């Protein structure tokens, strides 16, 4: 394949992958909040979306599309904070606004612990791939 054709193919495939991922996120949200389906009815889609998103961001970090060298502790903590805040808002909206289940303060606190832990695991996952990416670049530069 000629290099220009490859470049065009990569761009088209990347764009369509991104659109598909957005569409799957949309489908998950519609099923949860509009159709009010049980999680078990769409958890297969949710798992695919979650894994894809995690590995998409990890891939961008590992291969240097996101400049790893510029990742500082402040940025990582900011990212962690954003994850916790967005997770909390989403949980609050899900239980108290959309599903109108109404959770007690203790129940919300329990969910917050899950959010904080899961967000921490996600951030560590990304930091790990960033570290692998930095190591890869250093190794390539040495050779």
């Amino acid at each position, binding site marked *: 394949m*000629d*290099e*220009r*054709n490859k470049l065009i193919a990569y761009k088209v495939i990347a764009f369509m992958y991104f659109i598909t991922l957005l569409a799957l996120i949309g489908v998950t949200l519609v099923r949860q909040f509009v159709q009010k389906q049980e999680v078990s009815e769409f958890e297969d889609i949710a798992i695919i979306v979650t894994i894809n998103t995690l590995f998409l961001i990890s891939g961008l970090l590992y291969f240097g599309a996101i400049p790893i060298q510029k990742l500082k502790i402040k940025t990582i903590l900011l990212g962690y904070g954003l994850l916790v805040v967005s997770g909390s808002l989403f949980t609050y909206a899900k239980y108290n606004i959309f599903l109108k289940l109404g959770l007690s303060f203790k129940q919300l606190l329990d969910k917050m612990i899950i959010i904080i832990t899961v967000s921490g695991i996600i951030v560590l996952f990304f930091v790990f791939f960033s570290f692998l990416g930095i190591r890869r670049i250093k190794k390539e530069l040495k050779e």
Partner: protein
Amino acid sequence: MKNIYYIYAMENIKLKIARIEKSLSQQELADLVKATRQTIGLIEKGKYNPTLSLCVRIARALNKTLNDLFWDED
């Protein structure tokens, strides 16, 4: 002072002249450098920015240097 000849912004007339001097069609040059005729055409029109490796292959096929084909001096 040397200026970079931005082949993605302007027509690459030097490349076209070098190709014609060698009596090569766009297709023949494309075959030599393992590209397509369209890619060669777009490079000559300044509508595609080739990779360095393709630039080197083109320069070798036309017995020119990168400077001759892709660099412009004041």
